[in-house]
């Protein structure tokens, strides 16, 4: 790529610092990109990265609260995406759920291994409850978002917070127990009930 070619495309106005904000990458696109990655298509891999990395980095960063650490986890996550793309089965999982699970699982495994490395987290509680919907591009299906939010809203307030702190911030049972001032076994029981209630509420 020479400098002339770069220069000549400058007129195509973009906002590369916010590529996630164009509401245009659909779940189907992500599936297609993963399909190309199975074919060892590096360009498709780069496109997949640009379409999904901001969301996944946001997710991992919220759990680890350390940028360098989160970058490392994202790197590992995309290596796994490359290596495991052929295991993705669109009949069993949405592509977003599949990629998110790879990133979240890596982040939570890391956090459990090195809990002391996590930065200060006073903001975790401030981030709850859910932020207002934004104009940002959504990889999530809006209907599913609404359904889940409405089901979470039906939980007791403490349990709403527990579910969100666990899923979004990576809090362990022990951390939840300390914060909510309950025995760990009670927290476990509450979580189980909350999850069962969510499943019932979401059942078609």
């Amino acid at each position, binding site marked *: 790529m020479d400098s002339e070619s770069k220069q000549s495309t400058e007129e195509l106005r973009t906002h590369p610092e916010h*590529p996630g904000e164009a509401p245009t990458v659909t779940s189907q696109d992500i599936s297609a990109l993963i399909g190309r990655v199975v*074919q060892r298509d590096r360009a498709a891999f780069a496109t997949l990265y640009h379409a999904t990395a901001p969301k996944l980095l946001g997710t991992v960063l919220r759990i680890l609260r350390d940028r360098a650490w989160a970058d490392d986890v994202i790197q590992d996550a995309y290596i796994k995406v490359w290596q495991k793309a052929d295991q993705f089965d669109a009949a069993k999982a949405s592509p977003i759920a599949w990629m998110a699970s790879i990133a979240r699982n890596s982040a939570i495994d890391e956090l459990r291994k090195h809990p002391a490395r996590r930065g200060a987290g006073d903001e975790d509680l401030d981030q709850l409850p859910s932020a207002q919907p934004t104009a940002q591009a959504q990889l999530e299906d809006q209907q599913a978002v609404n359904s889940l939010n409405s089901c979470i809203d039906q939980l007791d307030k403490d349990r709403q917070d527990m579910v*969100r702190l*666990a899923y979004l911030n990576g809090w362990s049972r022990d951390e939840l127990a300390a914060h909510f001032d309950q025995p760990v076994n009670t927290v476990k029981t509450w979580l189980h009930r909350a999850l069962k209630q969510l499943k019932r509420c979401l059942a078609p």
Partner: protein
Amino acid sequence: MTDQNDLDTLAAEFVLGTLPTKERADVASRRANDPELDALILAWEDRLVPMMEDVAPVQPGPDLLARIEQRLDELESTGSSAAEPPHLATVTVLRNRIRRWQLSTAVASVAALVLVAVLAFQPAQQPQSFVAVFQHDDQQPAFMLTVDLESRQMNVRPVTAEPPTQGKSYQLWIKADELGPDPRSVGVLTNNMTIDESALRQYDPELLREATFGISVEPEGGSPTGKPTGPAIHGYLYPTEARDSGQSL
């Protein structure tokens, strides 16, 4: 509580992330050989993933993708030859094709060669749907063009491209050997970045399959000369060989 119930709760807490470390590791290794557990985990991932709506995207640093790609290079070079990329040849053909367009048009000096990511929609039941991605540079997808070869319906969507500046328009071009040496206009994108979805109906699917597409910046309303006059980026509908490899989504 039944066993099934226990297993589902285990899967749910695994996905939530709250299982104690040892149990979590057990579930992670067990799911590989336990399709029932694996299916329950996938179902919970689907149930809970909408919570990510809450997460504000964070733009990765500019070097992270390069780091990842470098790591992939290392892994691939140490990997077995079985990891040979099956479509390397096709990508090379694609690049040559774009160079040919550049050389064969008078606008070669301004029409930049930009890396083009090309991929095919290949859901098992709909092999006639294709997509081209127009990339600004090695990194940013600018537009996506999807074409259903059967109905010849198409759709252009901006990804990172913003509406053109005042007095400019984006114009979509098609280039194919059968159409002669010059790109032919498909149409001018509206200010809302849309285009007539049936604008490709005059071309037969075989031609579309082999064609290269370009999007250029032109004076408002389109090129006054009938040829691209502004900087262009190129995309190419991925050919169908991929279907023969037995891969499907």
